[in-house]
């Protein structure tokens, strides 16, 4: 069935049912791509219409409301049923979702259920050869290549885009989105969140941070990461680390950067006591500016840093934190 011209965005919400920034990014881009056509937004929440005005400001003209009190408790499974219902209602030429854990869980199920084409980790759109005329640029292999890909079939297709890929475009006083209430038929065997644990000290999220300070095995012991955290605090940065450190049990896995951890692209990556193994490099090499501190002048990290500082981190780090505090006028 040939699809119509609508673009459907799946809202990414917090556990408190607030839209995440990426939701507005996807809407802004959908509006640009739609060129005056319909932009739908699917909202799974207890009261989806409460967000209607705000979503309309970023481009939503139609709001597909999947009302329910337990969406945040259910993992991906059931959200798939809602996205399927929205696709049936909208028959869109493109579905945009955030490239994260939730998006992947839904897209994986949906692609298999409906036999859809899917692209992931996209960071930009482009015009070009594609069944719906829209192609996506995707960095692959740790950012060493960029491919441009399109779709082959004339049907709804899924594109998962990385947070931070699109500029926000807001217009105040936009007409309210037309509300379409969805009746979601539950088909997916669901997995339930039985407990949600808040942990101390989980600050800025690594993927969204514009500055990341990472500490490696050179820190010597877990307590010394206070030096890294102090510096991160002054810079408003997220803290990252290496697998060597995670394997030692000094830091949690969700801070690991690299081949078997996260791939990030902050404006500034500050690597402290990190040797720069290839498996670490593939997770951070596309950072805009890389500054490395290491006492070994031959450390591989100095081959791909913009600024390499040779010296003892235990001297340099506290001094740097103090210096930055002084410049920012923060009383020490």
């Amino acid at each position, binding site marked *: 069935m040939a699809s119509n011209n609508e673009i459907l965005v799946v809202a990414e919400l*917090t556990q408190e049912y607030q839209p995440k920034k990426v939701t507005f990014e996807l809407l802004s881009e959908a509006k640009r791509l739609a060129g005056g056509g319909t932009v739908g937004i699917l909202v799974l929440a207890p009261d989806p219409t409460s967000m209607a005005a705000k979503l309309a400001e970023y481009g939503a003209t139609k709001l597909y409301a999947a009302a329910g009190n337990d969406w945040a408790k259910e*993992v*991906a499974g059931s959200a*798939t049923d809602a996205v399927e219902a929205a696709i049936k209602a909208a028959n869109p030429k493109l579905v945009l979702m955030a490239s994260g854990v939730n998006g*992947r*869980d*839904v897209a*994986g*199920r*949906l*692609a*298999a259920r409906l*036999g859809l*084409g*899917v*692209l*992931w980790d996209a960071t930009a759109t482009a015009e*070009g*050869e594609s069944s719906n005329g829209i192609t996506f640029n995707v960095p692959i292999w*740790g950012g*060493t*290549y*960029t*491919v*441009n*890909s*399109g*779709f*082959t079939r004339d049907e709804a*297709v899924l594109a998962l885009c990385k947070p931070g890929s699109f500029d926000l475009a807001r217009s105040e006083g936009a007409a309210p989105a037309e509300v379409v209430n969805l009746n979601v038929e539950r088909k997916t*065997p*669901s*997995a339930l969140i*039985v407990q*949600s*644990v808040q*942990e101390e000290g989980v600050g800025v999220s690594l993927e969204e941070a514009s*500055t990341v300070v990472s500490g490696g095995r050179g820190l010597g012991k877990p307590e010394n990461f206070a030096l890294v955290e102090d510096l991160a605090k002054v810079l408003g940065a997220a803290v990252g680390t290496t697998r060597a450190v*995670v394997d030692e049990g000094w830091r949690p*896995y*969700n801070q690991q950067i690299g081949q*078997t951890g996260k791939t990030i692209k902050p404006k*500034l990556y500050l690597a402290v006591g990190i040797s720069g193994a*290839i498996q670490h490099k593939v997770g951070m090499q*596309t950072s805009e500016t*890389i500054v490395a*501190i290491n006492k070994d*002048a031959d450390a591989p990290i*100095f081959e791909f840093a913009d*600024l*390499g*500082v040779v010296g*003892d981190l235990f001297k*340099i780090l506290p*001094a*740097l934190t103090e*210096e*930055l505090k002084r*410049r*920012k006028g923060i009383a020490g």
Partner: protein
Amino acid sequence: MNIVVCVKETPDTTAEKKFTADLRLDRSAVAGVINPYDEYSVEEALQQKEKLGGEVTVLTMGPSRAEESIRKALAVGADRAVLVSDPALADSDLVATARVIAAALKKMSFELVIFGQTSTDSSGGMLAAAVAELLGLPALTVANKLEVEAGKARIQRSTDHGYDVVEAPLPCVVSVVSGINLPRYPALKGIMQAKKKELLSYSLADLGIDPASVGSSSKGTKVNTASRVSLSRTPEIFKDAERAAVYIADYLERKKLI
């Protein structure tokens, strides 16, 4: 408890990769290894087996040379392996791969299927959900802890602010992150034993899958262009540790990074 671990052979991550003329990864040009993320799923399967008994089967869809990688999983302790191989499978996408893996799983007996979080060559990380869908099973993805008891699987997965505990009844599909355990290394004895372990091969015909529904021709997406990203930097090295703090601060200020 019988466990199936889905393992992919991927090109060595540290090797320089190339594209073929039709913009596919040139697999012949690089050595193959077990997808590094799958070392953790194999380890997790072995640890669960040690606790709960049963057998661990490794399932791979790939070219026949993937047998070498599979032997490594057998060498660390998996009991047997199944290789689905067919020339028509080359360049299969997510949906096609899911169909094949699901069809193979239907021929096997299991309470748990374990996937890696993602593969280093495709970075899709969606196959576990896709296969669960085709089997009508719940999926517990990106687990950094797994407990199986009383007919249920319970995992922990990281969130922005901590972690969630998620539960589903068996049988189910799980994908694990690389932080979940420390994979063991094969011992010489294991390597010797691996040579004698059972390795079953399936073709598409064995699975009753139409070759036209998989491989290149079935793909929902198409690569138009591929370009090398230039990452060359000209490192500036600063060696005066005494003045380093001020120098770095100046540098960051000049680049408008603070």
